[in-house]
């Protein structure tokens, strides 16, 4: 089972993201409604991937990515940024901060599922062996 943390201040959006990934019965989901809650959950449990909104009221997605990349134990954690802000500046800032992917809403269920599957498999190998595939 791959543990996926879904972070968005909109519950409906979190549910939509989970629905997109629902075809994979071996994915388990944890919700976080803010950047602060995401950091708290990441500090308590190991996840295989994070789907992260960019714009949130307390701590934004960029700050969460920077926190994750600053932790030795989380440095390789795959992070997909999802946002309605598809401008170049947001994209560049997200990737420079260390996000693995940047997706603009609306995205299709197929698109995000494909990206998650691409990222989760190597992460699982890394978690099991300690070696990047």
């Amino acid at each position: 089972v791959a543990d996926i943390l879904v972070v968005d201040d909109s519950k409906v959006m979190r549910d939509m993201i989970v629905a997109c990934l629902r075809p994979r019965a071996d994915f388990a989901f944890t919700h976080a409604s803010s950047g602060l809650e995401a950091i708290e959950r990441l500090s308590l449990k190991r996840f295989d991937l994070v789907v992260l909104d960019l714009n949130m009221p307390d701590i934004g997605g960029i700050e969460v990515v920077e926190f994750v990349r600053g932790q030795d134990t989380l440095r390789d954690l795959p992070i997909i940024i999802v946002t309605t802000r598809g401008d170049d500046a947001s994209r560049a800032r997200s990737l420079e901060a260390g996000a693995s992917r940047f997706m603009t809403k609306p995205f299709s269920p197929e698109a995000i599922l494909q990206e998650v599957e691409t990222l989760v498999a190597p992460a699982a190998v890394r978690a099991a062996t300690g070696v990047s595939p």
Partner: protein
Amino acid sequence: LSGRVDLAEFLSAFVAEADEQLVVATAKLLAIEQAERKGARDPRGVRDAFRALHTIKGLSSMVGVDAIVAISHAMESVLRPADRAGGALPVGGIDPLVKGVRAIELRVRSLERGESVAPPPDDLLNDLDALVSGASGSATGKPSSARFALEPDISCTRPTAGGRSGSISRHRPSAPSAASRSTRSETASVHSRRSSASCRSP
């Protein structure tokens, strides 16, 4: 998989959250107006109103309610620069924004009743566009579709097999500069959603 999140599955939750955000937006716009009457600004109110419209736009885009996407996007385009300017809305900005909230609300009600959703009102979009044009000092009277088509915020897309698209950028943690170049090359197009204003019912 359908290529799009199914509105029918999320209709009641979508309506509930849209209503919640519309209440926030209305309250904030009224607070901003009251502050303006006192000659003051309400930067927190502007930011909260922006965030409410941003959430509505994101949810609407995911389920393909393009009319609401277009209205909320036009409202965002007024509120974002105001937020960056410390809460300074353009003169006469409140009225079109309140009308925008009302226009979104009407369309949410249509969705709730299972009816087709009306396209966004051109006069409202033009009024909101005019506020943006006036605030930025650019030429007024510019066709609204021109500004919308050039707006980079809405969606930079890469076609997918399902006909829908998601903008995807790849990043190799060990080579961020290379990743940035890859990002540019994968950005296929910027498209307008205003042209497809009709929406399906659940």
